[in-house]
Each structure stands twice: as C-alpha cells, then as structure tokens.
C-alpha cells in the first residue's frame, strides 16, 4: 500500500469512525445515567432516517430542514420510549429493563417493516455533501470532510453542556447516584428525558449521515451500526462522551484497515467489532480512557 492509498484509508476510517462516534454518544450518555443498554438506539436511528427521507422526498424539504425536523421528531420518540417503556422499570432489576429494551428494539424494527415495507429506499446525498475533491491521486468526497467536522462540533457542544451548565452538572451527579440526586430536589425524570432527547437526536443525525454514505435505508439498517456503536462506547470507556468518540474512531479505523490490509478477510469485518469488544472486556474492561466504572 503506497502513501496515497494509506491516506485514502485514513480518511475513510475517519469518516466511518465519526459516524460510529455520533451514534455511540447517545448510548454512552444513557448508560452513564441509567446503567441501561438502550438496545433500541439503533432502531431510533432507523426511524430518524425514514423521517428525513419522508421530509426530503415526500414533502420536498431542503436537506437541512429535513435533517433538523427529523432530529426533533426523533428526540421526541426517544423521550416517549423512555417514558413509556423504561420509566416504569426504574426500580426493577436491571435485566428487566434490558429485556424491555430488546422488546422496544424489535417493536420498532417490525413496525418499520409493516409501515415502510422491507424494500430498501434510495437515500439521496444532497449537493453540498456530494462534491468530489481530487488532490493528485487522492479523491475525497465532501461528505467525508463534513462528517468529522460535525462530530467535532457536536463533541465540543456536549462537553460545554456537561461541564459548564447546570443541566450538565445534574447529569454528572445523576450518573453517580440517582436516588441521592432525587433527594437533593432535582427533577431526575426531566434530566433523563433530556438525555434521551439529545441521544436520540444525535442518533438521527448519525443515521442520516450514515444513509448518505451508504445511500439506502431499510427497517433493519439500524441493527448493525447500533451494535457497533455500543461496542465503540465500551471501547472508549462507557459513560464518557470523549471516550465514545475515541472508541468510535478506533473501531472505524480498525474496520477500514482490516479490509484494506487483508482484503480476503473482508467477510469477517462485521465480527471484528465483537472480537475487539471481548478483548477489551477481558483485558481492560474500563475502556481506553480507563475511568472507573461506578457499579
């Protein structure tokens, strides 16, 4: 592999990793606060994609309006899922909430199949993300430039929110001890709802950029990115937003490099995330950033 090719793969890895990162943030925020693996996160992403598709194709909205509208509606969906399915189980054993999350995930997938049909729909890439820059041998799609920038902006905004606002302080406190925070007079349900809203909106954004990269959407599209994003969140150290982004980038690079270096292993690409996960859980369960997991 020569230098240009290598650079090309680095850019590919950066794009894929940023997409994983966007999705992983939602996972890690919800897990950090509720200790709940929100299985339905990937399917929330799918719903976000369909909403954007309807906005852009059926109602002829410009892409940014479709994106923002879809993010808003998906945030609402996230809050509804939390209030309807997870809130009644706050005090139940954690496994019960996990089973419910699996139920929500299957519910969204199958409702998607019933409503949207199983046939994939074409997802168009807007003009701004579809320009091809050529520098020597290197070919870069503007999509690959924008996605890491957007992820970086999102990360910066979230860090500001978590460490500089009262809401963020409440979130950090909640991740330590939910009951105590409740006793301190903080409306925990409101904070949890906001967390779900942010996570789901980011999942929608991540899903829409994902659909621009692989321009097709179907009701089961969220499963694999969702699972891999969870792995990314664990890789980075779950409960930590910076860790989620870092884990996403590591996973993206590893996947791209596996296929680039050993093309005959391409079929095993989807298994790589889980092998990495198992390796990390065995040797460094706290993830890259190594923050202690509050148990």
């Amino acid at each position, binding site marked *: 592999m020569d230098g240009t090719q290598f650079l090309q793969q680095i850019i590919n890895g950066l794009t894929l990793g940023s997409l994983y990162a966007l999705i992983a943030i939602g996972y890690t925020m919800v897990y950090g606060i509720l200790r709940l693996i929100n299985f339905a996160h990937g399917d929330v992403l799918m719903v976000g994609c369909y909403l954007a598709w309807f906005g852009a194709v059926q109602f002829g909205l410009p892409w940014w309006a479709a994106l923002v509208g879809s993010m808003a509606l998906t945030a609402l969906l996230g809050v509804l899922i939390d209030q309807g*399915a997870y809130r009644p189980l706050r005090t139940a054993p954690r496994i019960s909430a996990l089973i*419910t999350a699996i139920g929500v995930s299957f519910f969204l997938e*199958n409702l998607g199949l019933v409503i949207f049909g199983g046939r994939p729909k074409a997802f168009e890439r807007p003009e701004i993300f579809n320009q091809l820059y050529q520098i020597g041998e290197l070919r870069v799609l503007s999509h690959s430039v924008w996605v890491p920038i957007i992820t970086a902006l999102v990360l910066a905004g979230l860090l500001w929110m978590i460490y500089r606002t009262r809401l963020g302080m409440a979130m950090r406190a909640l991740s330590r001890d939910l009951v105590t925070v409740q006793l301190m007079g903080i409306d925990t349900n409101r904070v949890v709802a906001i967390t779900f809203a942010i996570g789901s909106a980011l999942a929608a954004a991540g899903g829409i950029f994902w659909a621009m990269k692989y321009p097709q959407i179907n009701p089961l599209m969220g499963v694999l990115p969702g699972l891999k994003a969870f*792995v990314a969140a664990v890789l980075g150290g779950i409960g930590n937003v910076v860790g989620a982004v870092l884990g996403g980038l590591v996973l993206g690079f590893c996947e791209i490099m596996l296929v680039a270096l050993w093309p005959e292993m391409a079929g*095993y690409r989807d*298994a790589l995330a889980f092998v990495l996960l198992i390796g990390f859980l065995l040797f460094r369960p706290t993830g890259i950033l190594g923050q202690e997991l509050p148990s």
Partner: protein
Amino acid sequence: MSLREIFSPGPLPPAHLTRRRDFWLSLMGIMLLAGLLMGVERLAGGYWVHMTCLAGIYLVLASGYNLVNGVTGQFSLAPNAFVACGAYVTSLLTMAPAEKALNFILEPLVWPLSVIHLPLGLALVIAGLVTALMAFGMGFTVFRVRGDYLAIVTLGLGEVIRVVANNAQGVTNGPLGLKGIPHLTNNLWWTWGLAVVALFVLTRLAKSSYGLALKAIREDEGAAESMGINVFWHKMLAFTTDAFLEGMAGGLLAQLITTISPSLFTFFLTFNLLIIIVVGGLGSMTGAALAALLITFGGEWLRVVEEPMSLLGLSVPGIPGMRMVIFSLLLMACMIFMRRGLLGKSEFSWRWLLAVLSRRGPRP
C-alpha cells in the same frame, strides 16, 4: 375471585409422602402425551405434524435456555449460536456424500466431513457434544463479565458464529447454506422424546444440589461464592448443559425444515426464545415448556391478523409482519405489568394440581 385465588392451592402435603403417586401420575402423563402424538400422526395432516414438531423443538430450546437465563440468572443471548452449531453438525453428518457434493459447488467440503455418513441418533449426540464443547470454550470469556455486559458479549459471539458460518465456505457452504437435508419421517417421536428427556433432566437438575447452587448464584453471586460455591464452574455447568440440549434440538430443527443457511440463525431466533421464557416465568422449567407450546401454537393462531378478513361487512386487508409487532408488544407488556410471567419461579407439580382440583368452592 381473582385468578391468583383460584390457582392458589393452600398448604400442600409434604413432597416425600406423595412421591410414589407423583411418579405414576407422571408416567400416565407421558402415556397421555404419547397417545396425543399418535393421534396427531394418524389423524391430523402434515401441517399439524410439522407444527407439533416445531413446538417440541421450541420446548427443548426454551427450557434449556431457561437453565442459563432463568435458573442461573446469567442473561445470555447466545442460543442462536448453539442452534446453528447443532444444525450444521447434524446436517453435515447425516447428509449422503453425493448430496453434499451437489451442495458444495463453489468450494468442496473439507475431507473428513465429505465422506462421513452417520445415522441420526449418533449424529445428534455428536452435535450436542460439539455444541457443548463450543459453549465450554465460550464460557471462559463469557463468564469473565456479568449482567448486561454478559448479554452484549454473548450477543456478539452469536454474531461472530453467524459471520463465520457465512465465510467458512469449505465447511458451511457460506451464504448458500445446505439444502436437501434428509427429512425425518418420524421426527415427531424424536422431538418429543428429546423434549420429555430434556424436561425430566432439567427439572431434576434444577431441584438437585447443583440447581440450588445455581439459584443461589442468581440471587446473590457474592453471597453464593462466600458460602463455598464455585461460581464459575457452576455457571459453566449450566451453560454447557444448555448448549448440549440446544445443539441436539438444532439438529432436529434442521431435519424438520431440511434447508438451513446462516440467515436462519440470527438474533431473531434468540428473541423468540426470550419471549417464551419471559412469558413462562424466568426460572420455571415447566413455565418455559408451557409458554413454548402457547407461543408456537398461539403464533399460528395469530396468523389471522396477517390475512385479509371481513369484520361486520367491512373488509380489512391483512397486514404482513403484524405478528412480530404483537409479540414485541407482548414482551414489553410482560416486563412492565407481569414480570413474573405465567409461573414465576415455581414449577408445576401434581401436588399443586390435585390440591387445586380437590378444593370445592371458594376458600373460607
């Protein structure tokens, strides 16, 4: 009078006094089951035979799965890997060499497998052993973690097995899968034979000192360990026993549907089993068995929602895929409103049944 009052029997006689009676009742129950199966085989059509076989297979899968998830409290999501392993091993061992050569067109089957041709019974036992061995290997990584991490790791391993089945073309024929697996004509007896044996072994295991240790691990792992229970090896015991049974059931499943491919063994299969054990009550073997029958036959009954029908002169178009929506709602509702499921953690017993039946009128 509430349902709970109807079914609560009051004080039961001590178990050791009724052991002999319970044995004869169980024997009669098995004979009754055999009579029913004979009736299905003679009188009902091929469709019902197929469904009854499927119900038996699900019964084995669900009660095995329940040993890990319900009794031991380790939330594993790997049964699809075990079923896949069992199905592939059994199929590869029982298919005729000529049939295998027809299947493997892209890449020939690796040597020893390409000539082996075994009778079903032996193949099933080997499938069970291979699957148990696989579970044994997996256990070393899986049981390093707990709780929801365990769920994700087992889910990941299930996915890895599927990816391997898709790519190891020399053994599994890749995405093409295997076709022309010999159809077993008396599958009904094999399946239900296995179901009776599995249920017997599992209920006895759950009652034995090993079962008590497993339940102790479920309730409080740290406390169990401090009482001298070797937590790791007990978890491993449950995991490999489950894998052995699921491997054999997977082999029978392959003989029933005669065509397998990696896409058959996705997380979807695990989800079905999860619904069954949640509805039956996590931790109850007989509950899992009952729910397996309910869900398999109830799922067939639910097909009406997918077919066009007329309600009061209005024609309602059928909605394909609606059954799974209902099943996922059922799982959620079960968790939120009825977390104990049908039987909770208790088992069906003759003592209970007789006590309920012999009670006349409302209790004072």
